[in-house]
Every structure is written in C-alpha cells, then in structure tokens.
C-alpha cells in the first residue's frame, strides 16, 4: 500500500474514538439538563461539575485527534 494512503487511513481510524466521546458528552449534558430540570436551584452547583466532565471527556477526543494530526502532518 502507498504510504500516503496508509497514513490517511490510519488518521481516519484514529478518530473512531470520537464516536465514544460523542456518546459521552451527550450523556453528560443530558444528565445535566435532567438534573437542572428536576431541581433548578441546584444549577449553580451542578454546572461547573458538568463542564468539568465535558472538558475531561473532550480531552479523550483530543488525544485521538492529536494522534491523527501526528500521523497526517509529521
């Protein structure tokens, strides 16, 4: 196989991890919305936790993206 083609394929495979991240972030925000809807007074306490969870989950996406970039551009 051509190296350039293999690189493109590898980068594509590397970002499959984003599927899991999408599910994870969706889960976090759906729980966040559900909790705030049940108890609107708790929003101030829950929101930072939600965004922390979002950032931690998003970092998994970025690890995968980083690998893809490393494959593509170096």
């Amino acid at each position, binding site marked *: 196989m051509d190296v350039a083609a293999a690189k493109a394929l590898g980068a594509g495979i590397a970002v499959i991890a984003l599927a899991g991240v999408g599910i994870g972030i969706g889960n976090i925000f759906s729980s966040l919305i559900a909790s705030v809807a049940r108890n609107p007074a708790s929003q101030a306490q829950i929101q930072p936790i939600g*965004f922390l969870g979002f*950032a931690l989950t998003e*970092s998994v996406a970025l690890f995968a993206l980083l690998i893809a970039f490393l494959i593509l*551009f170096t």
Partner: protein
Amino acid sequence: MAAGVAIQPMEQFELHHALGHFGASVNFTQANLFMVAGTGLMLALLHYGARPAAIIPGRLQAAAEMLYAFIHDMAVDQIGEEGKRFFPFVFTIFAFVLMGNLLGLVPFSFAYTSHIAVTGALALLVITIATAVALREHGLHFFSYFLPAGVPLFLAPLIVPIEVISYLSRPVSLSVRLFANMMAGHVMMVVFATFVVMMGSAGGIGLIGGAFPVALNVALFGFELLVAGLQAYVFAILTCIYLHDAVHLH
C-alpha cells in the same frame, strides 16, 4: 488538492529567536517572549485593578476582583479551609495558563501552552508540590492513599498497583490535556485557513466557496475562546483536586 498550496499546520509551533541578536545569544524564543508578556499583562491587570480599591468597582477592578474571587471560591470549595494556603499557587497556575491560551488567539502571536514542554513542566510542578504537601502533612501515612479504606486486604495486590499507576499518570493526563487542546485548536484553525487559500487559488466559483471556511474559522475563534478559558479552569480545578487529595487523603 490545489497545486502549490500544502497544509502545513505544524509550522506555527516552531520556535524562533525573539528580540534579535540578544535573543539569539541567550536562546530567548518567542515562547519566552509571550510568557513574559502574559505575566506582565496579568500583573498589570491585578495592579491597576486593585489600585482604585473603590467600593463600587469600575470595569478593570471588577475584572480583577471577579478573577480573584472565582479562583478563591474554587480553591476553598475544592480543598476546604486549607485551600486558602494554596490559593496563591492555584491562582498563579490559572493566570499563567489562561494568559497563554488567550494570547495564543491573537493573530500572529504564539500560544506557549501548545508546547508539551511548558504544560509538562507545569504538571510536574503541580504533582511534585501535591506529593510534597502530602508527605509533609501525613508523613509515611501518605502511602495509605494507595489502599483506600474499606477495601478487603486480599484485593490489595490488585488495587495498589492500579492506584499507583493512576497516581503516576496524573501529570501525563494533566499536561497532555492542555497541550492537545491548544495544539488541536490551532491546527484546526490553520487547516481551515488553508482551505480558504486553496479555494481562492482555484478561481471562479472557488472565490465564493472560500467564504465558508472563513465563516467557519470565525466560529472556531469563538469556540477556541471558550476552550481557552475552560482549559485554564480545568487545569486549576484539577490542581485543586490533587491538592485536596494531598491534604485529606481521599
């Protein structure tokens, strides 16, 4: 791919000597220059923000006070009363990372947090201090951290290595998270900016199509602004969580 235009997103992370001849002789790069600039800007904000000391704060004072109160509340909430002792450290880390992230978004500038050497050093500093605090507060009792209370003893051979590995991987995840976020964001912006050039050089309909990547890049700038603040916040809050573990052992 249009002829002559190649995507070179990694070029922006290369270090160059700044300040001309003087910079070259002491290896002073643009990353160092922006660290100095970021620190200076933050010091200026805090200095000129704190100086009026008005009861009804002006805009600058409000910005400085909100930043201060935000991190102070976070440190006290996360670490507990002892958080006040660590607040200067957490605030310094937060301000440094925030300034790095935000300055990186200024066109033609450089985000020093997009280098693993910088974030790695920060993360090692955090972990070293957290471990030192834990050892000073608890002495050798600190090592009970690796065996949570209530775990059956026969599980110890399994739990202890897992806890040790998770403890040791903290600086890695802490540094790579910030570095990857900033690097990926800047690479993405360069990739979309290159699309504009590719579309434009194609001519004809491409000149109109080139507007889409421009619009997307504007949106990305907004998103990166959010990421810049969020990642500085996450770095600071994880620092607080690690310090909480150091002070309270679980």
